[in-house]
């Protein structure tokens, strides 16, 4: 990397709100970094964040990290880019994060230009795209139908780097983006400054989870240095290091294919990438390719599901633990029968799930033949129904059986250990991811709405 100036980006953490050490950020910025970039969400925590617009992290956790990053940004005069604000990256998540950023700005006495990028789509927009033949399925789902779109509470499209670059060219100091691919947020500034597309996208993928590509993932994020043909990855913490293995194996993470990654507007192909150590702590990567493709954005959509009410018992009685599978099956049949008889519900109106933690609740698969009895189990009861009220009435109807079901008929009635009074917990709604499709667009801007907030200092009550 000689005549061309590399683009340096600080990626302080895998997700805004997870905790950022100011010293690590400072360490990256003193090396001449051109930007700070990171994301604030993913689909990892399930569909509720998209369906409800509520962040998985607390306001305090996000504010604490934003304060560190906004103070550092102002001190060094570099832009701060944050993708997928508010966990799901819907309009609500962007607005929530903007509100926190404005509060931090006021407290720090700053007046940054903040751009917001929105990629939430209305059902009508997606229906129109569907009718135009612009929506294509990704495995394992089939073609999209209008009814599925109608079910969605919120739909977002994953942005590429173009809206971030446009916002920076408009003079933004801080860019708060809705749903974006993790890679695109990090690749944006290198791409804007003319770095190689293969190097920029690959560097974005390697650093998307902050320090996860380092030897000690608990010790801070990374600094990437992106050139025309190559990029380097360095840990922000002086105690940490990157090695060829820690960097190259990150391509396996959360990917179904470790060599090919589809992004908005192209495909990252790292089949021929070469990784080499730079001294004890850095890694240099060459040979990454980005192959342009017609522009597509991945869609995510979350629908409302049924309501659930929970009950728990702890069971330590060896007589039950010797026959967990049989006990659970007999109890389940008795509970279903009782709800049908007492409440007059048909089987399709409710579901009861019993999950013996300490036995096979996590996998749901039968325990291997010959597995010794556990010392105790936690048995979770989940009633699922169309309303919270109905789910709770089902739980209360099951109450006497669930807490006192004998291991054999004709025996004295036991009492299992239940921890709460009242015994049931209303857990609210379930939600459901229903889209796994891409939408074809003219370019990276067509479906994106942009705003610029110039004077963000609000009145603080």
């Amino acid at each position, binding site marked *: 990397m000689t005549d061309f100036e590399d683009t340096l980006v600080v990626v302080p953490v895998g997700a805004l709100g997870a905790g950022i050490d100011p010293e690590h950020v400072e360490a990256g910025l003193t090396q001449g970094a051109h930007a700070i970039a990171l994301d604030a969400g993913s*689909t*990892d*925590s*399930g*569909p*509720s964040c998209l369906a409800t617009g509520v962040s998985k992290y607390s306001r305090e956790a996000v504010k604490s990290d934003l304060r560190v990053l906004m103070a550092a940004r102002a001190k060094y005069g570099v832009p701060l880019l944050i993708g997928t604000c508010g966990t799901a990256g819907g309009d609500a998540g962007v607005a929530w994060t903007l509100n926190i950023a404005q509060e931090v700005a006021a407290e720090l006495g700053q007046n940054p230009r903040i751009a917001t990028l929105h990629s939430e789509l209305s059902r009508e927009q997606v229906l129109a795209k569907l009718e135009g033949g612009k929506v294509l399925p*990704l*495995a*394992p*789902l089939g073609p999209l139908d209008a009814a599925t779109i109608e079910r969605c509470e919120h739909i977002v499209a994953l942005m590429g780097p173009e809206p971030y670059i446009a916002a920076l060219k408009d003079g933004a100091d801080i860019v708060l983006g809705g749903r974006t691919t993790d890679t695109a947020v990090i690749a944006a500034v290198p791409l804007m400054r003319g770095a190689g597309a293969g190097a920029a996208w690959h560097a974005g993928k390697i650093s998307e989870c902050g320090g996860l590509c380092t030897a000690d993932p608990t010790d801070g994020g990374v600094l990437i240095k992106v050139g025309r043909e190559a990029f380097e990855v360095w840990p922000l913490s002086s105690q940490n290091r990157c090695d060829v*293995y820690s960097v*190259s*194996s990150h391509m*396996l*993470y*959360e*990917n*179904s*294919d*470790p*060599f090919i990654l589809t992004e908005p507007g192209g495909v990252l192909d790292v089949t021929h990438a070469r990784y080499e150590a730079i001294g004890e702590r850095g890694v240099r990567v060459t040979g990454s390719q980005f192959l342009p493709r017609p522009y597509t954005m991945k869609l*995510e959509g979350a629908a409302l*599901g*049924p309501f*659930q009410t929970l009950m728990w018992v702890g069971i330590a009685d060896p007589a039950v633990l010797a026959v967990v599978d049989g006990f659970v099956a007999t109890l389940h049949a008795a509970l279903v029968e009782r709800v049908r008889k007492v409440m007059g519900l048909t089987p399709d109106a409710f*579901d009861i*799930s019993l*999950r013996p933690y300490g036995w096979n*609740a*996590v*996998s*749901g*698969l039968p325990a*291997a033949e010959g597995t010794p009895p556990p010392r105790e189990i936690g048995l979770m009861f989940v009633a*699922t129904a169309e309303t919270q009220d109905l789910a709770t009435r089902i739980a209360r109807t099951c109450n006497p059986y669930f807490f006192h079901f004998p291991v054999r008929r004709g025996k004295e009635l036991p009492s299992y250990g239940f921890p709460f009074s009242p015994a049931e917990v209303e857990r609210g709604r*379930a*939600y*459901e*991811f*229903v889209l*796994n499709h891409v939408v074809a667009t003219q370019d990276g801007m067509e479906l994106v709405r942009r705003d610029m907030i110039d004077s963000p200092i609000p009145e603080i009550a």
Partner: protein
Amino acid sequence: MAKLKDVARYVRSKAAGPFWITVDIFFPSRDVYDISRDAAGLATTAIEQALRLDPGSAKRVDVPDLAVIKYAYPRRHAQGGAFERDMHGGQQFVPLLELEI
């Protein structure tokens, strides 16, 4: 016959988007990988059987440079729905530890 848990350095599973789970088997060296890669116990059919997946649903990618075998398979239900048991899919590798290779 050895079990996967005695041969692999590390086995993990994780959601790869809301509709897929991916499993990575890390072998301790290229040599161990080379000896193990063709074992019947590591064929996609064996993985499908151990995890009770639909036949033909699992894909396998070999990464010899990292001494890794990677699988991906679709979830029975989309991540995080009403009947979820393992949101991140992070515990789904466990039945594979007992595979004989």
